[in-house]
């Protein structure tokens, strides 16, 4: 067998092993440039591997890989189908995109002697997220979930402001509660079925579905995963964590961590428990719809009153997660497609927004609204990317955000849920208000008299911002790729052909 064939055969394992081994090696790489270059190299390899996996899935269908050669359901199985290929692509793409930006940004925000630790933690976080997405074993999900969470606590705590420390602590406490609840759920499921393998669980659960332990397991799992994905009202950790973390961390975590948690939700609700149990036996649709609508409205409104732009965008993220969960809770092909599509689009939007804010922070030193006066003229390229991503957030036609909103509204109309559709549209108006706040301050107010004039950032920082902002527009016009992938994944989750 050629080396390439061996690599392709073990691609699922390599997808995890490569960043996992690279992380401790990164600790040995003292010096900013070495650590950064190593990270860059690894993230590119990871991205290429995820493309390879997506390609394989597209051609050959579901990939089932036995870790260590031990057969499922006793061994741990890595199972890649349309949905996780999609999620893997998103995570690895965002991971790859933020690293070029990170060089300068990290130099400014984190003390020099910690850079290698930063990149090591970053690679660990990437590993954890990829692992959650790729694994086919329920307990393995917990393990990788904790790997990614712990490393993100550490990453967030590296922020300059001392409030980053308390934000990380609060996230640690809440995240651990969430993960522990998930663990309880998995434990109870194991107790009733005797297996941890997801496919096997799916086969065995229907027989014991309406027993009390399984109901309890479902409840624990739901609360745990909703904590992780920051569904209102379990979102308290998010605003502070995003606001005070280093810019690169916010961009990366905002674009990926909650998405992967949503993937976990999808996997458990649809593949393991089954859509009928999750949404019919347990009246989950109603609960999730109410909570997501509250998330959308309350979080968008809170965003309007924020003075710190990162916190503003953090609340906006909570609202966007509401959109995704709303689409998912409809349990129709269109609804699920809109949710999955928005996972992709939101990663693009928030990635671009937070990176451009990171660029502003790099030059201006603050992300308070007041400090951003007049920045539109001084940093035109950065702020224009912010505007484009902002328009995508609002859902202006020709941007990616419009496509996911269109699908969501179509799905709501198909269900005949008028009032909810109107609320979704009304929340777009709220988004206009808070995006416009920033735009106005940046473009229409003159800089403060004692503010230093700032220049545009360098190409290395502009390039990721513009790739992400441009992707917003590109995928708003040529929608075949994301809609195709999301549609396939949706149909697969619902067990419909395709």
């Amino acid at each position, binding site marked *: 067998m050629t080396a390439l064939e061996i690599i392709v055969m073990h691609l699922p394992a390599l997808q995890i092993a490569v960043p996992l081994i690279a992380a401790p090696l990164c600790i040995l790489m003292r010096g900013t440039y070495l650590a950064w270059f190593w990270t860059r190299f690894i993230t590119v390899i990871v991205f290429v591997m995820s493309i390879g996996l997506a390609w394989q899935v597209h051609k050959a269908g579901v990939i089932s890989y036995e870790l260590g050669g031990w057969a499922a359901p006793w061994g741990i199985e890595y199972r890649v189908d349309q949905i996780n290929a999609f999620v893997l692509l998103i995570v690895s793409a965002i991971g790859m995109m933020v690293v070029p930006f990170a060089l300068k940004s990290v130099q400014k925000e984190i003390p020099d002697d910690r850079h290698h630790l930063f990149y090591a933690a970053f690679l660990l976080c990437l590993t954890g997220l990829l692992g959650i997405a790729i694994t086919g074993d329920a*307990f393995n999900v*917990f*393990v990788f979930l*904790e790997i990614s969470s*712990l490393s993100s*606590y*550490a990453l967030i*705590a590296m922020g300059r402001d*001392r*409030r980053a*420390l*308390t934000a*990380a*602590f609060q996230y*640690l*406490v809440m995240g*651990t*509660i969430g*993960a*522990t609840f998930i*663990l*309880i759920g998995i*434990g109870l499921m*194991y*107790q009733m079925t005797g297996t*941890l393998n997801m496919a096997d669980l799916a086969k065995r659960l229907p027989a014991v579905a309406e027993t009390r332990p399984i109901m309890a397991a479902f409840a624990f799992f739901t609360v745990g995963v909703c904590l992780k994905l920051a569904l209102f009202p379990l979102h308290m950790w998010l605003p502070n964590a995003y606001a005070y973390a280093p810019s690169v961390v916010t961009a990366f975590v905002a674009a990926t961590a909650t998405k992967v948690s949503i993937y976990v939700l999808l996997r458990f609700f649809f593949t393991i428990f089954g859509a009928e149990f999750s949404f019919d036996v347990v009246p989950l649709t109603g609960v999730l719809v109410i909570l997501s609508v509250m998330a959308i409205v309350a979080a968008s409104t809170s965003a309007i009153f924020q003075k710190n732009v990162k916190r503003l965008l953090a609340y906006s993220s909570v609202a966007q997660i509401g959109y995704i969960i709303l689409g998912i809770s409809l349990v129709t092909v269109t609804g699920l497609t809109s949710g999955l599509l928005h996972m992709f689009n939101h990663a693009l939007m928030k990635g671009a927004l937070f990176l451009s804010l990171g660029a502003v922070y790099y030059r201006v030193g603050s992300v308070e609204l007041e400090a951003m006066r007049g920045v539109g003229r001084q940093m035109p390229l950065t702020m224009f990317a912010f505007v484009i991503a902002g328009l995508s957030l609002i859902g202006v036609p020709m941007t990616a955000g419009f496509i996911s909103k269109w699908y969501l509204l179509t799905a709501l109309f198909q269900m005949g849920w008028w009032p909810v559709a109107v609320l979704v549209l009304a929340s777009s108006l709220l988004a206009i208000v808070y995006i416009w706040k920033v735009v106005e301050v940046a473009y229409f107010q003159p800089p403060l008299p004692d503010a230093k004039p700032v220049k545009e950032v360098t190409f290395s920082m502009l390039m990721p911002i513009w790739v992400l902002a441009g992707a917003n527009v590109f995928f708003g016009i040529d929608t075949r790729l994301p809609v195709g992938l999301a549609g396939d994944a949706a149909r697969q989750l619902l067990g419909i052909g395709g």
Partner: protein
Amino acid sequence: MDFLAHFNYWVFVVLMMAGFYTLIARGNLIKKIVGLNIFQASVFLLYITMGKVTGGTAPIVPEGGTDGVIYSNPIPHVLILTAIVVGVATTALGLALIVRINEAFGTIEEDEIQDAEAEQ
């Protein structure tokens, strides 16, 4: 009585709630971490006790083969080892954060920290 038959679950619930309560109600950050630990320990107990088979012994192959030997399920033990490690790592990270918070804020009481943040 059912209570005795399920007493491990009762212990699990009581510990979980005790840990959870400590976590929420105590303002001192270290006490919160302790509460978190108790909370996680309760889950460990859940797993381990669920693995015990009545009349079962340790899952080690004895001399003379495994015929007629009842042994407890080793898998929950394995799972819990992993979970314990995760718990230790979490505790370590939490305590490290508390040390840094103490350096930055001069206190590890939650209400005092919130006041300090509000002023900032």
